[in-house]
């Protein structure tokens, strides 16, 4: 047991990559399937980026679906009007998502606490409503942006099935690597300090506003890549990509997995999608009720989420040892 944990601690990225890349082999044994595996990767990337904002700086955005959705629409529109090639589409999508995040971040990050949450929520709902009605002719309104008979491809290789899975997995592993580097960097240290004591930080010569914007934009870039991949994976854009419930799900995932740990939100995303799509079948109509109860139990008894739970179990198993040095 200790040996396993020591390997985990020494080679976290390698272990992570192995678990992700071997998913096609072990996932079906627990009732998973290909499409879900890819979708988990995409949401994991989304949640991972969100952790750089919520987990590090403590800013609870209820409008992060904006970047996921805006980028998804940009990708879809590129496919529709430009070409099936994913590279230009994804580049444009990420640029659009990033621009949106710079503007919205600049306007909202001056507020904190619930004012920030509500402001991001208001921005999100505004865009969602516009996508449904005002811009309906571009977005396809409630029907979603449909892309008949097209298969996104990269340099002529069709992006479906396993090719898509491994591409997404590679992006996720890269994303995880980058996030870990950020976490260990001076930049990451200062982001975590924002959550810890923002006022002290301001009086320590740090331009907190810029760091917050930095975190916001980075997390929005993750969201944009995820949103874009979503459309590559399935050439279809639904309006609910922009809806507050998408942001809400993201929050649920991060909290259940464990905020600020990077791996936590990934586990949270995997758990939630697995629950929603596999465990919901035996549970029937009441699955959402069960999920709500699980969520509440975690917030009440295990504020650190699953990752905290694992730590507790581990400590129980090996007897109490070391104060769990942060990594």
């Amino acid at each position: 047991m200790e040996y396993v944990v020591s390997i985990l601690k020494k080679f976290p990225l390698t272990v992570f990559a192995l678990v992700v890349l071997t998913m096609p082999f072990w996932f079906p044994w627990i009732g998973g399937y290909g499409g879900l595996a890819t979708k988990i990767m995409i949401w994991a990337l989304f949640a991972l980026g969100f952790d750089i904002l919520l987990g590090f700086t403590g800013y609870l955005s209820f409008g992060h679906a904006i970047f996921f959705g805006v980028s998804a629409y940009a990708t879809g529109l590129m496919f529709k009007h430009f070409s099936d090639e994913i590279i230009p589409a994804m580049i444009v999508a990420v640029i659009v998502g990033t621009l949106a995040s710079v503007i919205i971040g600049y306007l909202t990050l001056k507020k904190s606490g619930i004012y920030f949450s509500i402001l991001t929520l208001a921005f999100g709902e505004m865009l969602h409503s516009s996508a449904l009605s005002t811009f309906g002719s571009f977005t396809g309104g409630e029907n979603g942006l449909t892309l008949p008979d097209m298969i996104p491809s990269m340099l002529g290789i069709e992006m479906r099935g396993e090719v898509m899975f491994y591409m997404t997995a590679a992006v996720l592993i890269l994303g995880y690597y980058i996030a870990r580097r950020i976490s260990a960097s001076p930049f990451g240290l200062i982001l975590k300090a924002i959550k810890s004591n923002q006022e002290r930080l301001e009086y320590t010569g740090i331009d907190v506003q810029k760091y917050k914007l930095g975190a916001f934009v980075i997390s929005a870039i993750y969201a944009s890549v995820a949103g874009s991949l979503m459309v590559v994976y399935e050439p279809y854009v639904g309006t609910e990509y922009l809806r507050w419930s998408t942001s809400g799900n993201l929050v649920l995932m991060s909290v259940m997995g464990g905020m600020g740990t990077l791996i936590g939100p990934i586990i949270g995303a995997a758990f939630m999608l697995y629950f929603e799509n596999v465990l919901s079948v035996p549970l029937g109509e009441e699955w959402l009720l069960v999920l709500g109860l699980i969520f509440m139990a975690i917030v009440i008894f295990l504020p650190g989420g699953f990752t905290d739970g694992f730590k507790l179990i581990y400590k129980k198993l090996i007897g109490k040892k070391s104060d769990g040095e942060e990594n």
Partner: protein
Amino acid sequence: MSKKSTSDVMLDCYQVSKNFGGLQALNDVNLKVKHNTIHSLIGPNGAGKSTLLNVITGMITPTHGSVVFDDTPMLDLKPHEINQLGLAKVFQTPAIFPEMTLIKNVCIPALAARDGSFKLNMFQKAGMKSIESFAEETLEEVGLKDSIHKEARFLSRGDKRRLELAICLAHRPKMLLLDEPTAGMARHETENTILLLRKIADRGMTMVIVEHDMNVVFALSETISVLAQGTIIAEGTPDEVKGNPKVIEAYLGEEQE
């Protein structure tokens, strides 16, 4: 940083006034703090000491007046810009990063000193070593070397103050502002703090101290300014201030309330 000051005045508050609604918190306050001195600010409760400190650190904008630090006008500057100019503040209740280890607490100001107020150094791991060893030295200086990997929230109140002092020092400021640095400390802790501050000052640090404990004030200060009802009523060396009738009146007035 290396800019040479043209006068021997490091901090110059000129006719600073602040109005909160109808309340005149500060009224034409003039305060000059000289290089390499410890300058104390005393006065009864509600005299405007905290307001003045907050004006200096950029938290409050005065109604009128000016604040010049090291030849740079400081009004309209944000707290972090003021800090980058070399002015660090030790808060009344210790302001630290409670969930972080001591070493990380001190690395942050060290980074701010090295990289400025913002740097997108997401991948830079190199150079962290020197920052860390510098942080360690600073912690050693304030006497916290033994617990550098402890989380700050587990420290005693006195140690939290030391940590905060280390945070301020790690930025290599030109001047320290201390808001009641010994509040709530036991006697021996207070004495240790006095020694520590003396040691720091002797290496060439300007300090402004707001303090209630007269033992601390008289043990440390070269100059004392007395603030009452928003105005400076007396200023001078400890001995001059001690005998000033206005000061006695101001303090007695407080006691009668």
